């Protein structure tokens, strides 16, 4: 039974791990912190996997657990951004078939997101992942009206950082 659950978890996780990597990139600014948060999220996902009923998609459940871990359980606070850390991110997402402009944009985007607070990070992340307001408000536990208001503010903040 345990073995079946474990196998299922590993295959679910393996195919969706990119979600967790993206969240780690949003909430941390160095490779060490990235790995640290990734590990904590993995522990939490596994610890709670037996309670995952499958009434939502695995990825939806994963978004929640991973974001909650980053916002509420992860102990180390995000350090202030260092130049080296920015190139860290840029290096990690460098790929030959990836457009140069988009690469620059992506680096700038991550750098800007790092300056937001934890909740705004979650809002912007869910926006970038194209999640509907209903899911965003349910994930954070606020009304959808509030989700909209907060989202607009977070977007404004982000725009100001990207284009001062």
């Amino acid at each position, binding site marked *: 039974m345990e073995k079946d659950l474990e196998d299922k978890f590993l295959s679910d996780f*393996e195919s969706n791990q*990119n979600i967790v*990597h993206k969240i780690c990139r949003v909430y941390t600014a160095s490779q060490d912190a990235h790995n640290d948060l990734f590990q904590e999220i993995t522990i*939490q996902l596994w610890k709670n996997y037996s309670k995952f009923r499958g009434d939502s998609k695995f990825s939806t459940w994963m978004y929640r657990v991973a974001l909650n*871990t980053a916002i509420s*359980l992860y102990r180390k606070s995000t350090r202030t951004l260092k130049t080296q850390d920015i190139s860290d991110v840029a290096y*990690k997402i460098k790929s030959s078939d990836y457009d140069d402009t*988009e690469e620059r944009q992506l680096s700038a985007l991550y750098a800007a997101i790092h300056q937001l607070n934890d909740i*705004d990070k979650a809002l912007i992340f869910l926006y970038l992942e194209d999640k509907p307001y209903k899911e965003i408000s349910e994930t954070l*536990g606020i009304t959808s009206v509030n989700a909209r208001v907060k989202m607009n503010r977070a977007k404004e903040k982000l725009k100001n950082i990207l284009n001062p």
Partner: protein
Amino acid sequence: MDLLDNYKKAWGNQPEEIQKLSAVEIYKMAHSKSSSIVKWIFIVGILELAFWLIINLFVPDSIYQVYEDLNLEKHLKVFMVFHYLVIVVFLYFFYVGHKKISIASSTKNLITRILNIRKTVKYYVFYNLAVVFLTSLALNIVLVSDADKLMKIMNPNNIPVDINQLIIITIISQLIAILIFMVLLWLFYKLIYGILLKKLNRNYKELARLEDVN
């Protein structure tokens, strides 16, 4: 086109993580030790519960002797039964609080529950402080109201002293002891919980900010 739309497109096109983990690596990670805030709050909470329990269990006999001398034994026994009942109730709430935590619930709900556990422990400590304060207050009132007994308890060797002086010394020494204790406790709280809860409180405020206005 909105400024963010371009960035959103770049986000959508970002390549997958280069260092993907294999099933084996994920397995190892999943079974490693957590160092989450909840875990630390749990450990600190247990230590606090244990600290006060130990204080209760290891009260030196001489203190009970004082109660005996003052004919307060029965009161003490009744109180101790009540006291342990209250501790059991606190332990129950502490346990239930942890059971209720669900990492898959909404962020606001999760933070509220974590902060509630912390509140339970806080009230437990307040309760114990109140007990220490009130019992010593009651004891002092009984003592001071009966000069003979005071002399007998505070001055068992019958060294000749002024009774008023003795009362003042008794009260001042107790005040100093309580003060030192409180300062240590306060420092402990500021340090431990300051570190542990800073992030949670900040994020909770951020989430609750608009909710309360509407």
